[in-house]
């Protein structure tokens, strides 16, 4: 009998999503084990964001299963899925520009499963991202892109999710800031948070993650290990379909 710990923290089986009659995802299978960093890469329009949205319940899956710790979450309301331990850093960050940095972080507490420990969780995030503490009374809209990305990640982390989904956290950031973001993701994993990372930066992600799925045209093409980051031929073939 599988125990909760033995089951993958997140498991997607035969996932299909349609926008109208157009299929955006076909028969997608993926698995994330506790403590892993798993990458999900692919060209524009491949269906990466759709995959994350199906997991958190903001788009409807027309077929397949989505299991969190072995329990089906498919069809549940997004707030319920988030409160079961899934954190999302959405595409485009979607911070509340008119609210302060501190208010944005406090909003993230809504996703907590337990009322206890909220203060410690805020402390932990402020330690991880000192800039958030320094600018806590500023309107979040006044932060730089990199700071806003840290806020979006911190806001998801204060809920202490089991698994953190990130949708292109490095998009639009300067190279040095991108380095910092990847470094923080490592630190987050070291604190016991499992990560599913959607990225456009293919090589970097493959080298960084424990495993990386390649998605193209709504279908999974292959899985790559960190050693295969240099294998550009295979990646190009997967991206453009051969």
């Amino acid at each position, binding site marked *: 009998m599988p125990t909760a710990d033995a089951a993958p923290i997140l498991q997607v089986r035969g996932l299909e999503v349609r926008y109208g009659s157009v299929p955006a995802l076909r028969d997608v299978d993926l698995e994330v084990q506790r403590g892993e960093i798993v990458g999900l890469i692919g060209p524009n329009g491949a269906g990466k964001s759709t995959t994350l949205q199906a997991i*958190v319940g*903001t788009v409807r899956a027309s077929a397949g299963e989505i299991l969190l710790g072995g329990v089906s979450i498919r069809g549940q*309301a*997004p*707030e319920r899925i*988030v*409160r079961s331990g899934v954190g*999302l850093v*959405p595409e485009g960050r*979607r911070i*509340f*520009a*008119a*609210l302060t940095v501190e*208010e944005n972080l*406090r*909003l*993230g*507490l*809504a*996703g*907590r499963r337990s009322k206890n420990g909220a203060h410690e969780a805020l402390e932990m995030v402020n330690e991880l991202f000192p800039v958030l503490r320094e600018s806590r009374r500023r309107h979040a*809209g006044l932060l730089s892109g990199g700071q806003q990305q840290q806020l979006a990640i911190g*806001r*998801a982390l204060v*809920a202490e999710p089991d698994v953190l989904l990130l949708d292109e956290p490095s998009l639009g950031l300067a190279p040095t800031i991108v380095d910092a973001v990847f470094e923080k993701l490592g630190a987050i994993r070291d604190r016991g948070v499992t990560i599913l990372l959607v990225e456009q930066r293919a090589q970097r992600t493959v080298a960084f993650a424990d495993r990386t799925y390649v998605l193209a045209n709504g279908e999974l093409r292959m899985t790559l290990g960190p050693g295969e980051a240099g294998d550009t031929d295979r990646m190009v073939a997967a991206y453009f379909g051969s």
Partner: protein
Amino acid sequence: MTEHVQTLLDAVALGSIYGLMAIGIGLVFGVLRLVNFAYGQLVMAGAYALALTQDVSVVLSIALCFAVVLALSLAMELAAFRPLRNASPTTMLVATFAISYLLQSIALVRFGAIGKILVVIPQLTKPLTIGSLHVRWITIVTILVAAGVFAALTLFLTRTSIGLQMRAASIDSETARLLGVRANAVITVAVLISGAIAALVAVILPMAVPERILVTPDYALRETIIVLVGVVVGGIDRLLTATLGGFTMGFLVGALSGFLPSSGSWPFTSSVYLDSAVFMLVIVVLLLRPEGLFTRSRRSVVDRV
């Protein structure tokens, strides 16, 4: 001179009542993107609850008024707003029209068209005399109550976590839900606060406005329409501007009806031309500032509530 001060105070009190209604309508608009045209019928229901129980104790009567209006607000949310959650704004507006007329018809069948006289607390309609100035107590109480509600609500929205969640849901409800904010819980709280304000208006209105002493099936309908106009003119996207819009409309109606002759002939007798004068002003304002009178700029979309 003192007569003008009295008129101005009465106008501020009327503005306060309209401002309260604007808060009630604006709160629900914020979290639901729904313009509740049936808001006045909540006030009407509360007024009937008060009118039918005025022989009992005042406290009991007011408690019953709040119970009826809160129950009706909750019923609206559960039976109409929630099933229409993903409907277009037009569908929802039409639905609230239907609810408004349904409630008016029920009142008409149940209580008749003649109306019931309602005085909740007779002592409050007596004047307070300061020198040659005579101000009715209810005028002062109304202004204080409205200011108190506004202050309390501001504290609630900025200091409590459910208030913060309400603001976030008003700005971007999908993102709020992605953070774990329970949309239905937040909406229910907003609907209940909005209902409590309607009950408060039901208690105050018949004392504060002499011609509103008579409770009829279309009670508070005219006020709702004027408040909705005020809310749109003020800028419905933010609670403060919506409230200011409602207040301004009430103040204008009060001031115009106080300063214009109430009888006689053309051009401006308040009884006949008041509404036309007010709405003409509204059209001018909307032509000059279509984004709302009190909105600072086009930032309103990210700056709601």
